[in-house]
């Protein structure tokens, strides 16, 4: 047996029925929040009154969300102590990648004690699904997804391709102030 509860439309009283006072009250409420946040965010940006909370809005280009430390973000290639890539071009990430967005070309390393190295290492971010399998598959800890770069955009498909130099030195990363408030 389904119980039904009938919810009646709230009855308007005299002042509400007049209409204009209610409109005025609404505008007042919105304006109060607007001016309060405007003033508080203004002071916050100078480091004042930070204990008084403003609205949850993050001032995006200047401020940035506090990212969870395990979040998968844009890839990077790690380096050895001498600055050369740790990658040995074993193609494990390329093989495991479900989006097929990794393109590696291997070559012989000039030092015979090191077998193989990548001649080129490209990732097509336009195809990447950020699953993190490449990081899991890597036997050398050569690829990581911890740059915290999330805002990726380009004017062309070619612009979404990252080459080895970009992956080794993630230049588009601009360090930003983390938002004062947690999510």
């Amino acid at each position: 047996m389904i119980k039904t509860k009938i919810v009646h439309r709230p009855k308007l009283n005299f002042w509400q029925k007049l209409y204009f006072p209610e409109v005025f009250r609404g505008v007042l409420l919105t304006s109060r929040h607007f001016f309060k946040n405007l003033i508080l965010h203004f002071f916050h940006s100078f480091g004042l009154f930070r204990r008084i909370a403003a609205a949850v809005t993050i001032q995006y280009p200047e401020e940035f969300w506090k990212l969870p430390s395990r979040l998968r973000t844009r890839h990077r290639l790690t380096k050895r102590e001498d600055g050369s890539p740790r990658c040995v071009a074993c193609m494990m990430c390329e093989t495991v990648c479900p989006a097929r967005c990794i393109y590696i070309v291997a070559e012989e390393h000039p030092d015979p004690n090191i077998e193989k190295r990548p001649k080129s290492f490209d990732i097509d971010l336009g195809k990447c699904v950020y699953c993190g399998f490449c990081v899991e598959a890597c036997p050398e800890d050569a690829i990581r997804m911890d740059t915290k770069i999330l805002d990726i955009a380009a004017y062309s498909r070619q612009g979404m391709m990252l080459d080895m130099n970009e992956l080794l030195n993630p230049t588009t990363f601009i360090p930003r102030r983390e938002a004062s408030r947690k999510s």
Partner: protein
Amino acid sequence: MPTLRVDGKEITVEKGTTIIRAAETLGIAIPYYCYHPGLSVAGNCRMCLVEVEKMPKPQIACHIQCQDGMEVYTQTEKVKKLREHILEFLLVNHPLDCPVCDQAGECKLQDYYMEHGLYDSRLNEKKVKKSAKAVPIGPTIMLDSERCILCSRCVRFTDEITGTGEFGIFNRGDHSEIGIYPGRELNNKYSGNVADICPVGALTDRDFRFKCRVWYLEKTESICPGCARGCNMTIETNLERPHHAHGERVMRLKPRYNSEVNDWWMCDAGRYGYKFIDHDRITEPIQRLDGVVRTMEWNEIVANLLKLFKGILKASKDEIAVFVSPQMTNEELYLAKKLFIKELGLERVFLVSTNPEGDQDDFLIRADKHPNRKGAEWLGFKEDERAIKKVMDDALSGALKGLVMFGQDLISLYPDRNIAEMLTRLSLSVFIGSNHHVTSEQAQFVLPAAAYAEKEGTFTNFLGRVQRIHQALTPLARSKPESEILMLLARRLGFDWAYESQEDVFDGLRRSVPQFQGMSYAKIGKQGVMAE
């Protein structure tokens, strides 16, 4: 004929058969490293140990011959433990650099570890480092003695098959390692085979090295077109990941077992003779008329070509010559014969080689560097030097007006004759072939043909064995197989040919040429058939 039981299954074998062979016939897989059916028995890897009833110790299955009433057990607890421990020994000094090893994916150490090993390493000591990693020991092979498990297959190969004896095992104990004798180099004509028989990554192919991972490869059974032997082989292609090896499609060729032709082996000339499939190809029909070079659509170029062709044909049938080649498949030669001789009634259709004669030995390599001379001869084509020379003389004097070539580089093949001058005097010169060369640059009409890896068909080797080639790739760019080109020409000339596939063409061939009687694609199968 001894009768024995392997794991309870009874089998009767020839006298002298080893247990490993008997088990193989029964479908029981016994793991092994040093055993190779084409080489002598060394018995040093100990991986194939099995229990035999009434024998006190486990025996190596690759060496023990079957006796009447033998009871062999390959799956007992003891045998399983043995395999695990042998594998542990073999891997003691193995570097485990699978990610960078070219053998990974087709390595017996990986396969057997997953199947029989799966133990945790107990080794606390340092691994014994062998002298060197990645040493080129010849033009084709790279040696990495660290990965070697000393099965000695390569030593036996160079001792027994090629007889050159470059390999040896040096030093003692756990310092022993495989190597080349001082001052020697591994550069015999069959050196590539040692990379095939090496069960681990110690010997790798320098040509294939780092080009592509083996699990990306697709395999197609085919026949080597390098000489009249017609070695059975597999074309291994990489189409899914074109960024490897700069977009080359064929990655390597591997020999395929055929006891009647090449056993397990293949020569280096054949093995590395695949580069032409992806390099210097003719990609589009080209017309060179009145000094204007144009690439064209197939329909347009065929129309232009046939207009000239019909004009000459109307005047005289003697004024057109056709040079077919022993590189063409039986099917293509049959269609060429049908079109030019039967339907058009041309008399000057000759077989002309595309390659000069080369070296020959008493193992696999034949001097005749064409895969299908025998088939062409069965179809009635003869390489008549005098008639060919006559054609060339007539072309120079103006008595011959049209010439159709199937891939022959006449300028390089006949350097003593003025072919370039001859080609300019012809009012119609047609070149049908796959690759650019000096002669193709001179012809008026250049029709791009598919390479052997891009078509179906059959070749007949010098012994008269008819073998199938399979299509591994789609024809590059706008090239077409010769058979399709011939069918297109026939259709435009008004002949009503109804062939849907190469099998239909073969059917016609079988009916008209006595040597092919009773054959079919199904009967030819993987190993080919001998003509009666």
